[in-house]
């Protein structure tokens, strides 16, 4: 099946008003600490996909695309990786002073189609679309671009790793993410493909959903400069998420769904 025909199919399918539903679960990494001092500094990180935060109840996080950057921008190897039933774990040694960035990046295409009456899902790169069987019916494609980040600082925070790549949704901290304290003004900026991500909804959820009756998410919209201002009333681990949807430039008639998520630690003053 050639790309044009495929795109036409997806155009038809999308024209019927259907679009791929949002992922039902939250994917996250949870570091054991984000602010470290001393010579011999290590952290251990959990990765999981779940509904509630930060609970292990569904799937472990795939770490195939995990990339750890040292404060100097060098690739660092995760150590002691393991994948269990509900949780993935890995350790990071923080040899240098400054801010490390742990990132899980996923780009590609999500597909849904019917084959012999059965609903099938497909996932792959844009160049792998030809793998989808020609007999696939009701094909719906979505281009995805997701970025998940965790920041950890040993000693004084640095920001070399925040230089934008210009692809997907990126965080441009005004307030350094490892300098978050309760009752202090926090300012974050977001870029989408290198441009200020204006008018996007940013959701922040504090850990411990199981121990309260309401999720109590904080929702803030980015302004024209793609920035948000907020204050954290309570300390703890927060999951941040921003999502955006636009027309795909790679797949005719398909949507490009972007997301950015991060786990932030807010310390009490």
């Amino acid at each position, binding site marked *: 099946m050639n790309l044009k025909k495929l795109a036409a199919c997806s155009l038809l399918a999308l024209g019927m008003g259907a679009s791929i539903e*949002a992922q*039902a679960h939250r994917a996250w990494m949870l570091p054991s600490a984000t602010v470290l001092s001393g010579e011999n500094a290590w952290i251990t990180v959990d990765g999981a996909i779940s*509904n*509630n935060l930060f609970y292990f109840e569904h799937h472990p996080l795939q770490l195939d695309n995990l990339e750890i950057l040292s404060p100097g921008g060098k690739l660092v190897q995760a150590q002691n990786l393991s994948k269990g039933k509900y949780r993935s774990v890995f350790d990071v040694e923080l040899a240098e002073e400054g801010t490390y960035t742990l990132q899980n990046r996923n780009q590609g295409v999500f597909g849904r189609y019917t084959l012999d009456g059965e609903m099938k899902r497909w996932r792959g790169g844009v160049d792998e679309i030809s793998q989808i069987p020609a007999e696939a019916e009701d094909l719906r494609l979505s281009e995805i671009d997701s970025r998940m980040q965790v920041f950890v600082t040993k000693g004084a925070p640095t920001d070399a790793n925040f230089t934008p790549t210009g692809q997907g949704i990126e965080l441009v901290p005004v307030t350094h993410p490892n300098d978050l304290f309760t009752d202090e003004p926090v300012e974050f900026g977001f870029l989408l493909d290198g441009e200020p991500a204006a008018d996007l909804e940013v959701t922040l959820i504090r850990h411990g959903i199981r121990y309260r*009756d*309401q*999720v109590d998410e904080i929702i803030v919209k980015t302004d024209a400069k793609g920035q948000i201002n907020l204050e954290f009333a309570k300390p703890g681990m927060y999951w941040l998420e921003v999502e955006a949807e636009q027309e795909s430039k790679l797949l005719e008639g398909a949507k490009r769904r972007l997301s950015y998520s991060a786990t932030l630690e807010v310390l009490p003053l």
Partner: protein
Amino acid sequence: MQWKTTAAAALLAVGSSTAMAAELKLDVEIPALQVAEYHRPYVAIWVETDRGRHQADLAVWYDLELKDNEGTKWLKDLRQWWRRSGRQLEFPVDGLSGATRPVGVHSLTFTDNHVGLTDLKPGDYRLVVEAAREVGGRELVKLPFSWPVTATSEQTQSGEHELGRVTLSLQP
């Protein structure tokens, strides 16, 4: 002789079935919510004494369609019901288990012949509705009532998040 006894028994049986049964009617509103990702809530409805002692389950709405009974995995999120009753039961329970309900008002009617109410001793009770929603919150609504029902009554309470109006109507 035999024929007379049978007739007498039949007469008795007819007599009891035409007697008026007390009625408990419950209207539960599943509220419409503006959320990015909506899932129908799990709901448990039960009767407990005014001291909190569980008496009888009336309904449990959960995802029955998942294979291998997987929907039972989240029954524990109905925290109070789970500890008072749910964790002692095996699912699905006939006459109790039902599918999750969509947004709207759902009515349930029970007569005092209902297995959950027929043994209820005279006293003060609470009808409790607990709802828990996936990637959402959880809420409890309690409506007090006395048993047996001596007068027609109606009361309404409103949840604020996961439940709308819950109305309990009693008829002697």
